[in-house]
Protein backbone atom coordinates (compact mmCIF):
# COMPACT_ATOMS: atom_id res chain seq x y z
CA UNK A 1 0.00 0.00 0.00
CA UNK A 2 1.29 3.43 -1.00
CA UNK A 3 0.06 5.10 2.20
CA UNK A 4 1.94 2.59 4.32
CA UNK A 5 5.15 3.11 2.35
CA UNK A 6 4.78 6.87 2.87
CA UNK A 7 4.29 6.33 6.61
CA UNK A 8 7.36 4.06 6.82
CA UNK A 9 9.37 6.72 4.93
CA UNK A 10 8.09 9.39 7.36
CA UNK A 11 8.99 7.20 10.34
CA UNK A 12 12.47 6.54 8.95
CA UNK A 13 13.14 10.21 8.11
CA UNK A 14 11.90 11.63 11.42
CA UNK A 15 14.03 9.13 13.35
CA UNK A 16 17.03 9.79 11.08
CA UNK A 17 16.63 13.50 11.85
CA UNK A 18 16.54 12.56 15.55
CA UNK A 19 19.71 10.49 15.29
CA UNK A 20 21.66 13.16 13.40
CA UNK A 21 20.53 15.93 15.76
CA UNK A 22 21.40 13.83 18.83
CA UNK A 23 24.84 13.05 17.43
CA UNK A 24 25.43 16.73 16.54
CA UNK A 25 24.23 18.17 19.86
CA UNK A 26 25.56 15.43 22.18
CA UNK A 27 28.59 13.75 20.52
CA UNK A 28 29.72 10.87 22.73
CA UNK A 29 33.42 11.34 21.93
CA UNK A 30 34.49 14.84 22.99
CA UNK A 31 38.05 16.23 22.63
CA UNK A 32 39.65 16.90 26.01
CA UNK A 33 40.02 20.67 26.64
CA UNK A 34 43.58 20.33 27.91
CA UNK A 35 44.68 17.94 25.17
CA UNK A 36 42.36 17.93 22.10
CA UNK A 37 44.07 14.83 20.70
CA UNK A 38 42.53 12.79 23.51
CA UNK A 39 38.85 11.96 23.14
CA UNK A 40 36.68 11.60 26.26
CA UNK A 41 33.87 9.05 26.08
CA UNK A 42 30.46 9.80 27.65
CA UNK A 43 28.16 6.82 28.22
CA UNK A 44 25.12 9.07 28.79
CA UNK A 45 25.64 10.76 25.43
CA UNK A 46 26.15 7.38 23.77
CA UNK A 47 22.67 6.38 25.03
CA UNK A 48 21.16 9.40 23.19
CA UNK A 49 22.69 8.28 19.89
CA UNK A 50 22.24 4.54 20.49
CA UNK A 51 18.50 4.73 21.19
CA UNK A 52 18.04 7.00 18.15
CA UNK A 53 20.03 4.50 16.06
CA UNK A 54 17.71 1.68 17.15
CA UNK A 55 14.78 3.92 16.18
CA UNK A 56 16.26 4.46 12.69
CA UNK A 57 17.33 0.90 11.91
CA UNK A 58 15.21 -1.60 13.82
CA UNK A 59 11.80 0.11 14.17
CA UNK A 60 11.17 0.72 10.41
CA UNK A 61 12.32 -2.86 9.67
CA UNK A 62 9.83 -4.24 12.20
CA UNK A 63 7.08 -2.14 10.61
CA UNK A 64 7.73 -3.69 7.18
CA UNK A 65 5.66 -6.78 7.95
CA UNK A 66 2.32 -7.33 9.66
CA UNK A 67 3.79 -10.15 11.82
CA UNK A 68 6.41 -7.89 13.40
CA UNK A 69 4.42 -4.60 13.35
CA UNK A 70 3.28 -5.21 16.93
CA UNK A 71 6.91 -5.40 18.11
CA UNK A 72 7.73 -2.29 16.08
CA UNK A 73 4.88 -0.46 17.76
CA UNK A 74 6.03 -1.60 21.22
CA UNK A 75 9.69 -0.75 20.61
CA UNK A 76 8.76 2.61 19.07
CA UNK A 77 6.55 3.44 22.06
CA UNK A 78 9.25 2.34 24.51
CA UNK A 79 11.86 4.52 22.76
CA UNK A 80 9.55 7.55 22.73
CA UNK A 81 8.85 7.13 26.46
CA UNK A 82 12.60 6.77 27.18
CA UNK A 83 13.23 9.85 25.01
CA UNK A 84 10.56 11.91 26.79
CA UNK A 85 11.78 10.97 30.27
CA UNK A 86 15.48 11.40 29.49
CA UNK A 87 15.00 14.69 27.61
CA UNK A 88 12.80 16.09 30.40
CA UNK A 89 15.42 14.96 32.95
CA UNK A 90 18.12 16.62 30.84
CA UNK A 91 16.15 19.91 30.82
CA UNK A 92 15.54 19.81 34.56
CA UNK A 93 19.24 19.16 35.13
CA UNK A 94 19.97 22.11 32.79
CA UNK A 95 17.58 24.28 34.79
CA UNK A 96 19.44 23.33 37.98
CA UNK A 97 22.74 24.00 36.18
CA UNK A 98 21.37 27.44 35.13
CA UNK A 99 21.84 26.87 31.39
CA UNK A 100 18.55 28.72 30.80
CA UNK A 101 16.14 30.77 32.96
CA UNK A 102 12.82 29.36 34.25
CA UNK A 103 10.94 31.98 32.15
CA UNK A 104 12.19 30.22 29.00
CA UNK A 105 10.95 26.82 30.14
CA UNK A 106 8.73 26.25 27.09
CA UNK A 107 10.94 27.45 24.25
CA UNK A 108 14.44 26.62 25.49
CA UNK A 109 13.77 23.36 27.28
CA UNK A 110 13.47 20.05 25.41
CA UNK A 111 9.66 20.38 25.27
CA UNK A 112 9.68 20.99 21.47
CA UNK A 113 11.93 17.92 21.03
CA UNK A 114 9.57 15.82 23.15
CA UNK A 115 6.71 16.95 20.89
CA UNK A 116 8.68 15.72 17.85
CA UNK A 117 9.33 12.38 19.60
CA UNK A 118 5.57 11.94 20.09
CA UNK A 119 5.04 12.69 16.38
CA UNK A 120 7.29 9.67 15.75
CA UNK A 121 5.09 7.62 18.09
CA UNK A 122 1.86 8.61 16.31
CA UNK A 123 3.33 7.80 12.87
CA UNK A 124 4.07 4.34 14.32
CA UNK A 125 0.53 4.13 15.68
CA UNK A 126 -0.95 5.04 12.27
CA UNK A 127 1.20 2.30 10.69
CA UNK A 128 0.19 -0.27 13.30
CA UNK A 129 -3.50 0.64 12.87
CA UNK A 130 -3.19 0.39 9.09
CA UNK A 131 -1.88 -3.19 9.44
CA UNK A 132 -4.48 -4.21 11.98
CA UNK A 133 -7.45 -2.64 10.16
CA UNK A 134 -6.53 -4.00 6.71
CA UNK A 135 -7.58 -7.48 5.54
CA UNK A 136 -4.73 -10.00 6.06
CA UNK A 137 -4.25 -10.43 2.27
CA UNK A 138 -3.39 -6.72 1.88
CA UNK A 139 -1.05 -6.47 4.82
CA UNK A 140 1.95 -8.50 3.58
Amino acid sequence: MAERRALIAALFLISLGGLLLHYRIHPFLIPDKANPAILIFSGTKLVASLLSFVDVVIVPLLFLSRRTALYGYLLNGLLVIYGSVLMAHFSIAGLAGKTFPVSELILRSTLPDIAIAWTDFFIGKALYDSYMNAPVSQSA
Partner: protein
Amino acid sequence: MIQYFLRYKPGWWILHIIAVSATFWLGAGVRFTF
Protein backbone atom coordinates in the same frame (compact mmCIF):
# COMPACT_ATOMS: atom_id res chain seq x y z
CA MET B 1 -1.48 -16.78 41.95
CA ILE B 2 -0.07 -19.17 39.34
CA GLN B 3 -3.16 -18.51 37.20
CA TYR B 4 -2.23 -14.84 37.08
CA PHE B 5 1.18 -15.67 35.62
CA LEU B 6 -0.32 -18.13 33.15
CA ARG B 7 -2.75 -15.51 31.82
CA TYR B 8 0.06 -14.18 29.62
CA LYS B 9 2.45 -16.06 27.32
CA PRO B 10 6.11 -16.44 28.45
CA GLY B 11 7.17 -14.00 25.69
CA TRP B 12 4.99 -11.32 27.27
CA TRP B 13 6.77 -11.75 30.61
CA ILE B 14 10.23 -11.91 29.03
CA LEU B 15 9.54 -8.71 27.05
CA HIS B 16 8.31 -6.87 30.12
CA ILE B 17 11.16 -8.02 32.34
CA ILE B 18 13.63 -6.84 29.65
CA ALA B 19 11.82 -3.48 29.31
CA VAL B 20 11.66 -2.85 33.07
CA SER B 21 15.32 -3.92 33.57
CA ALA B 22 16.44 -1.68 30.69
CA THR B 23 14.52 1.24 32.20
CA PHE B 24 16.20 0.79 35.59
CA TRP B 25 19.60 0.31 33.97
CA LEU B 26 19.17 3.50 31.94
CA GLY B 27 17.90 5.46 34.91
CA ALA B 28 20.84 4.37 37.05
CA GLY B 29 23.42 4.94 34.30
CA VAL B 30 22.69 8.40 32.96
CA ARG B 31 24.57 11.40 34.36
CA PHE B 32 23.78 14.90 33.18
CA THR B 33 26.60 17.27 34.05
CA PHE B 34 26.54 21.01 33.42
